[in-house]
């Protein structure tokens, strides 16, 4: 396995002190530490310490939802073409960070660097696939409805608002992007809880997103204990929908119950992340608006 530490010390004198990255949260376009000041050790599957990640508190969830809510109006109003371009841009930037991400994925998932590179490539492709849907989804999910009168009648998919996302625990990058991209490309803003045991690629993805023209607050990524944060997100009255795909089966019933407090849209699906995606996740976080318009002559 290629380790960043060895390669760094090889290219520099042994006396040099490494400058290690602080893994932080991503809220409203900024990278704060947790307001609680806490962090937790992230271990590789073999028990080796990889890094300390910020351990978000419920107040960080609150702040992330505030940031997500503030970003809704602008992101919703962005043209479909623009949303697509922004997501393509994320894919471009991701490609450039490929080595770093492959290293982190390999360490997190204890896979070979080759397998990790394939996962990064699949992630970029997944983003491109979803980016392409930005200006095509409305044609597929929307309709022109026949009505008995001199009116046009259209049904159009509209974003739901702020979407809470529990990212998959196992697939630290491909799975994460597969749940993050669909709500974003359909015009929602997201608050993502990264998988508890493998959060480091999520933080690096946040750094990619921060430099890819995604407006601040559209994507917010938290790292920490799922058991502590997921119920807060599920019960939050200003969150409009939640994706429970990353929650363990036994926890889903309780999270569903909490989400019912304000009748959130709840989506959960145990996808094979390597399989080709479908429209299911795009359809999950939109609501249909139907408008009538008089036929001009």
């Amino acid at each position, binding site marked *: 396995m290629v380790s960043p530490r060895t390669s760094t010390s090889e290219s520099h004198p042994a006396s040099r002190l490494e400058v290690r990255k602080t893994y932080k949260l991503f809220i409203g376009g900024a990278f704060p530490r947790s307001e609680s000041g806490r962090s937790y050790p992230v271990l590789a599957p073999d028990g080796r310490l990889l890094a300390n990640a910020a351990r978000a508190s419920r107040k960080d969830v609150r702040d992330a939802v505030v940031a997500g809510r503030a970003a809704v109006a602008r992101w919703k109003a962005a043209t479909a073409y623009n949303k697509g371009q922004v997501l393509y841009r994320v894919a471009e930037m991701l490609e450039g960070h490929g080595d770093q991400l492959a290293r982190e994925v390999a360490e997190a998932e204890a896979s070979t660097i080759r397998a990790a590179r394939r996962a990064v490539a699949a992630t970029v492709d997944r983003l491109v696939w979803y980016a392409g849907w930005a200006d095509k989804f409305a044609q597929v999910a929307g309709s022109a409805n026949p009505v008995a009168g001199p009116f046009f009648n259209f049904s159009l998919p509209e974003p739901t608002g702020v979407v809470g996302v529990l990212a998959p625990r196992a697939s630290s990058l491909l799975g994460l992007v597969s749940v993050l991209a669909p709500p974003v490309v359909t015009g929602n803003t997201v608050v993502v809880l990264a998988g508890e045991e493998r959060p480091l690629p999520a933080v690096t993805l946040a750094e990619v997103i921060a430099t890819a023209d995604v407006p601040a607050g559209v994507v917010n990524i938290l790292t920490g204990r799922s058991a502590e944060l997921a119920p807060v997100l599920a019960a939050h009255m*200003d*969150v409009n929908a939640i994706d429970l795909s990353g929650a363990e089966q036994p926890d889903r019933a309780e999270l569903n119950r909490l989400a019912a407090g*304000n009748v959130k849209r709840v989506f959960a699906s145990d996808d094979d992340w390597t399989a080709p995606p479908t429209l299911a996740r795009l359809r999950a976080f939109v609501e249909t608006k139907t408008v009538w318009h008089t036929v001009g002559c």
Partner: protein
Amino acid sequence: MPPQPLGTARAARAFFGDLATSDTALRQLLHGLPGVDQAGAEARAAFLATRSVKKDSKLFALELAIAMIDLTTLEGADTPGKVAALCAKALRPDPADGDVPHVAAVCLYPDLVAVARREIGDKGVAVAAVATAFPSGRATLSVKLADVRQALDAGADEIDMVIDRGAFLSGCYGQVYEEVRAVREACGEAVLKVILETGELATLDNVARAAWLAMLGGADFIKTSTGKVSPASTAPVALVMLSAVRDFADATGRRVGVKVAGGIRTAKDAIRYLVLAYETAGEEWLHPSAFRIGASSLLNDLLMQRAKQLSGAYQGPDYFTVD
């Protein structure tokens, strides 16, 4: 008993002994007030802002803050319909929860007082009117007094007057004092709040002087701002005013209230002011009869934070009434 600033009581006694309210006498008193340490006031206010209020104390503070609100609408676009909605909200802030106390008052322009009076009747929420050529105060005394009388005739319980900042800043303390006295007389039994508009007073020393001037003139409350000038209410300004009412109470035995207004939008801000009032003026000021918060959007944040305390779930604005 908080420590008494040197000279304050002596100066007040000297003033009350002196029946002439000339500029010179007032200048002697006001400029004899102990100087305000601006850096110290800012540091003290910042320090008190870090106090953490949790659980039961927080719930108490939130409900107290709700009961202290002067629910305000002071827009050119105000309509009778909007005022009626505001009054309904003042009487029952959370339609879903009758345990929430009603606010202290609604605060409006004088021409809308009659509408508010009709909506509120005698259900315990006061009707306050901003009078005396609010917000600039640039009118002659007779116009200001007519403004006040009109508001009172329409049924106002409380009058929020503005001082003539131009006169104050040019040292015409006698004129400012006489205006406050005249409005005080016109108010009769009504509660008089005197707006200092601290954002235009330049220094904290001036804030302390204006506070004393207003209290000597007969104010029941001294109020920070109109909300139309930036900066509006700030923590150091509130600290200075709260110290002034404390010193005034020590010197004269009369408890004058403080109203902070302008830019207070979050429950966190409101609680910080309560801490400031408690620590500076004392526990007797933690009551709607002695401390008010002029605000509009603040109320919803207080309601949301209260619901959060009770339910444990963070709240969203979709579930609270607009305005």
